[in-house]
């Protein structure tokens, strides 16, 4: 793949991205990163709720003046993160003429992705059957909590709660705790998006070879359970519920997250084997407790893990997390500062790999965006465009893709079939 020369696997493909929140839009953005033209479709009466529901709309450029709905819908920092590089086409899907335009766009596209609940697709009549009727070789992907199959088809699960439905929540937790734990963000979304992307790329390969369309059904729940599949294999063999393991590891001992000097500062340390253990001892200046013969073996360290944790934390809590990381890494021991999000921006590794770039957004101003995860290192990806404002590319889509003339487009605008502003109050 080469972003500069445009040697990209999905070049020449057009995607209709009728998605909301995180998982679906993230999938659309990754398709853009792989070379597809991605058209984000929303309605003036029903836009991607991330634009307005999630209240992180503080406007960087202005003072205390309240934002108009239009301003508010174009500056959301979740929306702008997961929709960069797309074209925005805002068409009223509740109107017959709007639905017709949607299907005309589908007919000129190769892929449709959506993550609406089954009822929404039925109501608007733009599900797989209706779309395949206008484009028989279409690849149509539905991404949902539980899949498009009964009995759980209509159950609701966004990327955070779906972790409970997947079994992962029950497996998470602090050492020995009765209470499970949830990953600290909507973990089902990125995992579901990556699995959906995988299935879609397989379908594109099939389409290029045989011309066959596909209907792809991805359940975020299944994608999370798959990542914890060892626990399911274990249950099927042994039928035992295991105690929660916290930050400990089946083989590495000790492994933990230890308090470092400062407020809410932590360092993660793993001792993978006896060699790491000896190296750790040297880095710590060979303290007496480390010389204990029983601790020379992993079995001994596992037996006395609590005691080692206390000794280690007495040492780590006197030092900065980054200093500990550098000292132990110098000795070859896996140690890593526990970074917060702001620290990522300054992290030398992520920066050396070109993980972030600034982009100028027409409504927000300068924004930091993540680049494509497949374009790091030798090939930093030039970010071509920020996320679109609502309806920003209506005219371009109507004229260049659908072949409408200026008079027809003006009429659609007049009648509110297309719009470049959300219908305030519809929220």
């Amino acid at each position, binding site marked *: 793949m080469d972003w500069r020369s445009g040697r990209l696997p999905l070049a020449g493909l057009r995607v209709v991205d009728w998605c909301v929140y995180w998982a679906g839009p993230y999938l659309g953005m990754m398709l853009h990163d792989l070379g597809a033209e991605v058209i984000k479709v929303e309605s003036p009466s029903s836009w991607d709720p991330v634009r307005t529901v999630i209240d992180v709309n503080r406007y960087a450029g202005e003072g205390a003046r309240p934002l108009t709905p239009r301003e508010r819908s174009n500056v959301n920092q979740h929306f702008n993160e997961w929709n960069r590089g797309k074209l925005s086409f805002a068409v009223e899907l509740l109107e017959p003429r709007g639905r017709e335009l949607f299907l005309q766009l589908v007919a000129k596209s190769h892929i449709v992705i959506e993550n609406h609940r089954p009822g929404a697709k039925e109501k608007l009549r733009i599900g797989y059957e209706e779309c395949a009727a206008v484009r028989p070789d279409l690849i149509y992907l539905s991404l949902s909590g539980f899949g498009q199959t009964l009995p759980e088809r209509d159950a609701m699960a966004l990327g955070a709660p779906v972790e409970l439905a997947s079994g992962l929540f029950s497996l998470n937790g602090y050492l020995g705790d009765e209470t499970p734990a949830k990953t600290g963000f909507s973990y089902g979304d990125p995992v579901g998006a990556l699995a959906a992307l995988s299935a879609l*790329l397989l379908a594109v390969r099939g389409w290029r070879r045989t011309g066959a369309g596909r*209907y792809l*059904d991805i359940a975020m729940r299944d994608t999370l359970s798959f*990542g914890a599949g060892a626990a399911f294999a274990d*249950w099927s063999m042994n039928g035992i519920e*295991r105690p929660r393991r916290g*930050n400990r590891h089946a083989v590495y001992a000790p492994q933990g997250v230890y308090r470092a000097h400062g407020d809410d500062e932590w360092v993660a340390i793993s001792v993978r084997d006896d060699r790491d253990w000896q190296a750790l001892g040297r880095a710590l200046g060979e303290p007496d407790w480390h010389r204990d013969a029983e601790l020379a073996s992993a079995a001994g360290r596992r037996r006395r893990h609590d005691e080692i944790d206390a000794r280690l934390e007495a040492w780590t809590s006197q030092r900065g997390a980054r200093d500990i990381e550098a000292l132990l890494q110098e000795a070859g021991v896996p140690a890593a*500062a526990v970074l917060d*999000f702001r620290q*990522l921006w300054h992290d030398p590794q992520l920066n050396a790999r070109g993980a972030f770039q600034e982009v100028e957004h027409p409504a927000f101003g300068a924004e930091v965006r993540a680049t494509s995860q497949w374009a790091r290192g030798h090939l930093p990806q030039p970010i071509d465009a920020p996320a679109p404002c609502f309806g920003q590319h209506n005219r371009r889509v109507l004229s260049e893709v659908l072949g409408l003339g200026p008079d027809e487009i003006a009429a659609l605008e007049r009648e509110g079939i297309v719009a470049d502003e959300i219908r305030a109050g519809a929220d």
Partner: protein
Amino acid sequence: MATSRPPGAKRVMNDSLADLLVVELSCSAAAAFAGRLCADAGARVVLVEPPAGHPLRHEGPFLRDEPNLETSAAHLHINAGKRSVTLDVEADAETLAGLLQRADVFLTDLPAPVLDPLGLSWRALRGSTPALVMTRVTPFGDTGPYRRYAATNLACLALGGQLKITGDPDRPPLSNFGAQAEYQAGLSAFAGTVANVLLRDATGDGEYLDLSVLDVVATNLEHRSPALNLGLVANRAGLSVSATYGVYPCAGGWVHLTAFSPPLWERLKEMTQVSALEDERFATQAARLERNDELQAMLTEWTISKTSDELRALALRGYPLTVAETPERLLRCEQWRDRAFAREVEHPAAGRVTVLGPPWLEEQPAPGRPAPLLGEANGEYLAPLVETRG
């Protein structure tokens, strides 16, 4: 059996990569997950293991908790469907190079400083096998100041920002279960590999992907953008972000309520039938946040009066809640039977074991395939190479 599959709709084919030979040389779960997905998509995947076995084979739990290279649960899941050959690569790189001559995809997590001196650099391989697609997934990638850092799954979660926000606010950051940093990277490595296979289909030329686990973890972050652009830094929130978005105890389990928007709040009221929620004091989202603790107490009173089964029945009707499940219960659920997601396989050493996946619905679910016995394909894949060399 109830399905709602549109008539005539075709799904993912499990022979999408059937024409490919994938050679996987790995010591971590990231590359191994990518290899597993290649096998799910129909590729022949040859897992090159050290004579002592892939590290996943050494990781418990095992069948009956008895350490055994063939019965580790992680190995049985992540290496399912692959062929195994054993090779001391550092002593005999020539045999691996021979195997790679026939390969379409080379999947590895060994860093350049290990492979390059063995003549297995991308440049060298490309010289002899111009159509090879090579994916290297390492903790930090080929470039940058941490490229020689020692790393584990936990270290990648820590440096990538996912660890700091998981767990209770008054306790240390908490890793989630399993090797989740490596799982995310495995998915990304698989997608990137198939993307490069698509390019190769078009051009006939090989491609190289340098993927970093850290890059994937730091990219898959929900609140990074508000933090970097607005200074809003998320902290560990434990089980509950707010009364209308969090985990509650119920009779015999846990349930997540999701009512952060006005329409969802209406659905929540309809579901609970708790009249006090109609009170003016909770009429707006701002008011609900202001009276968060009071609202949480009222909702807890409702959730603990319900059993998990009663709540599941409400979830099936589309109400905004999600019930916590265990592996035990999921392995019996109708949804997975219908989707053929949990497949029982017969393994020569482990007996009957359930293997999940693939994580997409297939056109015609293939029977599950077990993980290989150590070195079981040596005769098929390595012996001819050794014989040719004489």
